[in-house]
């Protein structure tokens, strides 16, 4: 039985909306400059297997920029963005493994399918996004309200 910890979080509409718009803006700028889809899965896979993705320097630059994000927030606001993990280490590792397998077979994740693909009205991405939103919701429900009950 997994140990269940739940951390209550406040609804933050303005941060959510402005953060989301920046994510959208970054996706548009990447399409404008390099003509590429902003997908975290593709970026990571490209960096990990450079031989299969020649000319992958831009992915490394993009990844470096992403990792610098929290530090820029720290520099401006004086506070590191909050990362609260209400999940035990074994669950974190099992979850990570499943995410890695899933995004590789599914050719994308929340950024590639959920933002870029949906914005292009790609039927494939809409199907993928609907599928993972559903299974994520079911998984959280089962862990918190069936197993955790």
């Amino acid at each position: 039985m997994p140990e269940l910890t739940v951390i209550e979080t406040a609804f933050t509409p303005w941060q959510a909306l402005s953060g989301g718009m920046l994510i959208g803006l970054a996706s548009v700028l990447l399409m404008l400059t390099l003509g590429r889809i902003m997908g975290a899965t593709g970026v990571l896979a490209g960096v990990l297997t450079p031989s299969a993705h020649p000319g992958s320097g831009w992915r490394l630059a993009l990844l470096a920029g992403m990792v610098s994000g929290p530090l820029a927030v720290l520099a401006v606001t004086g506070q590191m963005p909050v990362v609260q993990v209400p999940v035990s280490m074994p669950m974190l590792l099992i979850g990570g493994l499943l995410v890695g397998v899933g995004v590789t077979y599914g050719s994308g994740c929340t950024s590639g399918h959920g933002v870029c693909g949906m914005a292009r009205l790609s039927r494939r991405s809409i199907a993928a996004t609907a599928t993972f939103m559903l299974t994520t919701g079911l998984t959280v429900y089962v862990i918190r309200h069936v197993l955790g009950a």
Partner: protein
Amino acid sequence: MRLFSTYLIGLIFGIGISISGMANPAKVLNFFDVAGYWDPSLILVMGGAVVVAFFGYRLVLRRSAPLIDSTFHLPENPRIDRRLLAGSAVFGVGWGIAGFCPGGALPALGTGQIEVFAFTAALIAGIFAAKGLIALSGARAARLLRQET
């Protein structure tokens, strides 16, 4: 120039993820916990990102080519197949267990928190495991095809 502008785009993405709360598993999991501590923030993150990308892409894709590449690199596979749906379903289960998706975890590495590194290590292991399985099944399919013909 190309790498620096791509770094800045990654930075915008990383700041957006940090502000929006997508790098915070507690917040992500609470979005899916409609029956418990529901935090609706994530819908505004995805909504803001998709709306900006939708209109931005419409402007950008009117061009004949991006600014620093000769052509747009858009996914052209229109097929909604079992692999897409099964992969997305598995991704959702992992996301629901761990609370990190790749687009949330990569920027969150910048916070230096050990949990993010653990998740990302498992994510990378999952990507390699799936790539290995796909290569194996591809080789087997090719062998079967040779035997038949």
